[in-house]
């Protein structure tokens, strides 16, 4: 063959390129629909309807938003550093998308199964800081700069906690490969969230902080810093930041799902028992049922639509769900296709569940203050993560060297971690030392103040 390309090379290089293209093409759409989901969920939590106009139940809202964003004027502030102002959002979104290279969407859908997959994702997502810092700096605005500095400090701090939490997962899995981690959970017959709940918990918090989501959304806290590092951005470049944020959310969810929630495995996949006389394997029917159910529900909604065009769009979605449901059902018949397609389904479902957690926190909690955020990171999460790491290590040694049952060892380890967690919380509740400045640092009274 010309250029020395052979069939193996096609499998090795071409297929990943196609996956990559699909991801790059589909991700913005996915991000858009996650935004729609967020708005709908938020609206329903807040006793209102959310977007209802563009498309039936706002189903076409993401597309309208995207069009609006792309058509907006792209402003570069006068004294901004043009090169960096251009580069920063690009960097941000590139790094977010690059991380997908090692994320396994299913046993079959992975661009590259790197030996150091998890570390690779961590490394790449740590580069996302530059997008934020440089963008904030280049904007030549105090809000942006403050937001950028906060963001950098926050990301660096919480990356430590997240990394430590992930390491305990790695200890259990014994590999750095993302695929290998899922397979480890498969072979051990338990998702790591059940043996290392604290790791999951720490990673959950740290991942929210790392993606700058509420209640850790200080870098873009709209009530304080307007929009933080994005204050001066508009139009396309702003939407790149936006895309990067949602892409990052999916990445961190993907890591959590892979490491703690069994990746692409179906729930109870290791169990072959029966309940009510039915085998658990019947759960394989669930994806198809869900899609058909969605199709039915959408049909019901479609029939209620007043306008013809809305009805048509809704039926479009009905069609989409029917096709997906059919694909799910059909793949059940093929042993070669079924793991891939169903794996992708379960992976995405788990990612959505994790993301739902993100949204839920956002609508429920007030925002942390910066010093409190740092305190939480350094004085609670990192010590706890360290203790947890040591305890998990001890648990593994107990299980492997002293032949304790894994469950017993892990319960013991986690109980110790729990005690430490309680202790740390109590420490944190004691009067803080850092909140108020020392007497000599306090500004003196102004002239208008009455003594």
């Amino acid at each position: 063959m010309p250029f020395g390309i052979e069939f193996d090379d096609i499998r090795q290089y071409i297929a990943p390129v196609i996956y990559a293209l699909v991801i790059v093409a589909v991700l913005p759409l996915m991000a858009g629909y996650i935004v729609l989901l967020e708005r709908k969920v938020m609206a329903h939590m807040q006793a209102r309807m959310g977007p209802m106009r563009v498309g039936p139940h706002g189903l076409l809202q993401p597309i309208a938003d995207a069009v609006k964003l792309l058509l907006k004027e792209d402003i570069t502030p006068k004294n901004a550093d043009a090169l960096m102002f251009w580069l920063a959002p690009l960097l941000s979104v590139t790094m977010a998308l690059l991380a997908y290279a090692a994320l396994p969407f299913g046993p079959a859908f992975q661009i590259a199964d790197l030996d150091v997959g998890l570390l690779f994702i961590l490394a790449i997502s740590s580069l996302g800081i530059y997008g934020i810092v440089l963008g904030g700096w280049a904007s030549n605005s105090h809000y942006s700069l403050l937001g950028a500095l906060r963001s950098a400090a926050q990301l660096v701090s919480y990356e430590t906690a997240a990394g430590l939490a992930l390491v305990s997962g790695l200890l259990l899995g014994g590999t750095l490969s993302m695929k290998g981690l899922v397979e480890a959970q498969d072979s051990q017959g338990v998702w790591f969230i059940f043996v290392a709940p604290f790791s999951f918990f720490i990673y959950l918090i740290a991942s929210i902080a790392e993606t700058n989501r509420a209640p850790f959304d200080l870098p873009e806290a709209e009530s304080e810093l307007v929009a933080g590092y994005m204050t001066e951005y508009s139009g396309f470049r702003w939407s790149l930041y936006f895309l990067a944020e949602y892409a990052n959310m999916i990445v961190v969810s993907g890591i959590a799902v892979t490491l703690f929630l069994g990746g692409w495995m179906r729930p109870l996949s290791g169990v072959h028992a029966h309940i009510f006389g039915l085998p658990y394997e019947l759960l394989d029917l669930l994806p198809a049922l869900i899609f058909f159910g969605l199709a039915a529900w959408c049909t019901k909604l479609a029939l209620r639509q007043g306008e013809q065009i809305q009805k048509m769009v809704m039926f479009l979605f009905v069609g989409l769900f029917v096709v997906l449901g059919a694909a799910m059902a059909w793949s059940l018949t093929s042993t070669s296709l079924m793991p891939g397609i169903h794996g992708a389904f379960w992976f995405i479902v788990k990612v959505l569940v994790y993301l739902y957690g993100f949204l839920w926190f956002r609508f429920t909690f007030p925002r942390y203050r910066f010093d409190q955020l740092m305190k939480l990171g350094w004085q609670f999460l990192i010590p706890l993560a360290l203790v947890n790491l040591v305890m998990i290590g001890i648990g593994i040694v107990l299980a492997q060297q002293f032949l304790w049952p894994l469950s017993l060892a892990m319960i013991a380890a986690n109980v110790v971690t729990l005690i430490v967690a309680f202790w740390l919380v109590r420490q944190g509740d004691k009067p803080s030392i850092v909140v108020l400045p020392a007497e000599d640092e306090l500004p003196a009274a102004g002239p208008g103040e009455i003594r």
Partner: protein
Amino acid sequence: MMLDSILFYFFAALAVGSAILMVTRRNAVHSAVFLISTLLAIAGIFLQLQAEFLFVVQIILYVGGIMVLFVFVIMLVNLDVAVRQMKFNRQSWVAGLLALVLGGLAVVVYRSGGGAFNLMGAPATTMPPNAEQVGTVLFQKYFLPFEIASILLLVAMIGAVVMAKRKI
């Protein structure tokens, strides 16, 4: 094999080009960005050398850690003044020339050294996945240096904290 060379030349060109830009940019932030680019290119060369673990370490530690610190400091020390001033010092011409002479001499030494540098050792075609191997060697053969390095880091950390305190 061809892909290998393409990758190498690509990364090498990127590294050298960015390095030159880093040295010549007036704005420190730009310099930092080009240094990041150099470091990433070097990470790419590590990958091309099949040292995945070092590739990741290079990115996490160097790019994600050390350079963040640099960027942070550059933003902290307000460099508006520095931007307007001369970027090279008065010895720059002499120094540049001498540095190039140094490089030339090094090349001469390397080339004329010939057999003195035994570089023709048979390269292994592929290396096994090495994250595990690196870990094993690091924690067995090089355990003491590893601990010393940890202490060095600790000392540096304390030193940095002390230096950056408000009142010294």
